[in-house]
């Protein structure tokens, strides 16, 4: 546990946008998340990694309020949001792209975008905004397609576009590049970097270490629902224990 000290300790002056304190979630006999403390600073590009079942997606769901934590609390911009409703969190500037695409499969791309956009943009400017976001994702030509007919990658981009339509300050991406080919992954990586540059704090989960390496400034490793290590990508990759648990030489 006491492997890599977080570097955030050096930069206390930087405001943290999200803080998890002793967060835990238990399902029956399984402790999916077990007392995690995590702090994300504003403007950061932060990655959560860990083996399957380490509790990453569960943490995301607790941040968004989909799951109620069994213990602990979630702070966003200094406010305790543990008891806040999901939509209140979304209005505060939290947005998510889920692991299993959270798109509306039976509706068209435009309809999907509209649902996400209209809440946060004036109707007059909506179409403009939608076009802008679809262009950003390079899926504008699919505007009238039914979402179920899209490829997995296209659905992922659509969902990222939808979560951006909520004008988030903290964006949670759960495996944004899963199932994408090399060019697509590259495109997604550029996209994530670009968004981060534009001032959106991003916390993401991914398995593809190439991808993580390309974009993450900081990495937190989860194992068995607990925080196992935290640090820069090179610190993490040079950490023998992390490599062990991640690749499972144990």
């Amino acid at each position: 546990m006491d492997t890599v000290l977080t570097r955030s300790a050096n930069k206390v002056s930087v405001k943290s946008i999200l803080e998890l304190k002793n967060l835990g979630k238990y399902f029956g006999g399984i402790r999916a998340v077990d007392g995690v403390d995590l702090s994300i600073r504003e403007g950061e590009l932060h990655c959560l990694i860990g083996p399957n079942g380490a509790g990453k997606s569960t943490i995301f769901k607790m941040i968004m309020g989909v799951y109620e934590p069994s213990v602990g609390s979630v702070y966003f911009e200094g406010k305790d949001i543990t008891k806040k409703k999901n939509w209140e969190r979304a209005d505060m500037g939290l947005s998510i792209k889920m692991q299993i695409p959270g798109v509306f499969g039976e509706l068209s791309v435009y309809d999907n975008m509209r649902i996400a956009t209209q809440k946060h943009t004036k109707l007059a400017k909506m179409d403009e905004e939608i076009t802008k976001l679809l262009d950003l994702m390079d899926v504008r030509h699919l505007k009238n397609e039914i979402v179920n007919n899209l490829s997995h990658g296209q659905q992922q981009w659509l969902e990222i576009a939808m979560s951006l339509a909520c004008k988030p300050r903290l964006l949670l991406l759960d495996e944004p590049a899963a199932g994408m080919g090399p060019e697509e992954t590259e495109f997604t990586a550029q996209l994530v970097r670009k968004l981060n540059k534009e001032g959106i704090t991003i916390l993401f989960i991914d398995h593809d270490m190439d991808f993580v390496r390309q974009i993450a400034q900081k990495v937190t490793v989860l194992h068995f629902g607990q925080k196992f290590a935290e640090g820069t990508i090179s610190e993490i990759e040079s950490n023998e224990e992390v490599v062990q648990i991640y690749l499972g030489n144990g």
Partner: protein
Amino acid sequence: MNTSKIKLNTENIVGIVMFIGLFVYPLFVSSYQVLNLSYFLSMVFLSMSLALIWGFCGIFSFGQAAFFGIGGYFYAILTMNIGISAFTPVGLIVGVLVGAAIAWVLGYFMFYGGVNDVFVGLITLCLTVVLETFMGQTAGSEWKIGEIGLGGFNGIDGIPTISFGSFMLTGINFYYFILFILLVVYVGLRYLGISKFGYTAIAIRENRERTKLFGYNVPKYQTTIFAIGGGLASLSGILYATWGSYITPSSFGLTAATLPVVLVAAAGRKNITASVIFTIAYYWFSQSLSASGSEYALVILGLGLVLVILFVPEGIVVALFKWIDQLVFSRIRKKPTIKLKEKEKVHGHSIN
């Protein structure tokens, strides 16, 4: 649905033709037929109310009949106590509002409490039967509101027709009055389909939990939609009550509660036009069977429903729309060639 322009498709053409047809209908038929059709039309609002809350927003309710009855009773008690015919339009409006308000309260109780899906159906079913049970036993003279006895199982009769000043809405006037409201509500609901509110409702239907994460206060929207549905069902009840000057607890009964669900499901729940057409067709069909005096009427109706659900589960009217769309409009509307190319691409990187 992604532009506000009216698209050329079967649904819209049928919708327009239907309203033109309904508009000229009285020119060709007897006053009885007109009266009869006004009855069917007043029941259409009930179906539309369910198509709205279930078809649009995914709220499965057995309780539309309850609001139907509440509307009818409320209008009856209010207007009969006041007894001034000029008051009847106010009674109509207040009745609709009361129906909506009660639905809002019930919706608040359910949706903010996290009751959803089939459980909404069960609560509303219980509520409907409670109302029937309660109203059925109000035959005693102690059950009076103002001057008006609730009348128990026999219900209330002599309910006044709506009149504007001395202008009474009877016969053909009543018909056009209903047709006018129908047109307004129909256009309103169709517009809702492309409005911000409608999109939210559809999002809630498709994936309630995800919609919350886009920042929508889902219980609030559900409650609002449920209230509008309650208001529409009330409107239906009031129109029905004025049509027959009559309302009874059987409008709360198990049969009455299930019928809208059956009609909307069989027509195709996601489509307002389908519900309107199918409701009129069903009432006409079942009335004709009844008038024939045939003892097989109910058997045939039952069989029809089973066949529809087995072979055209998306709803028979919707299936017809789609079929005609394919047949007629697919040639007119260009099939994007991109799509094929995209398909290829899709296969290229599709992964689970």
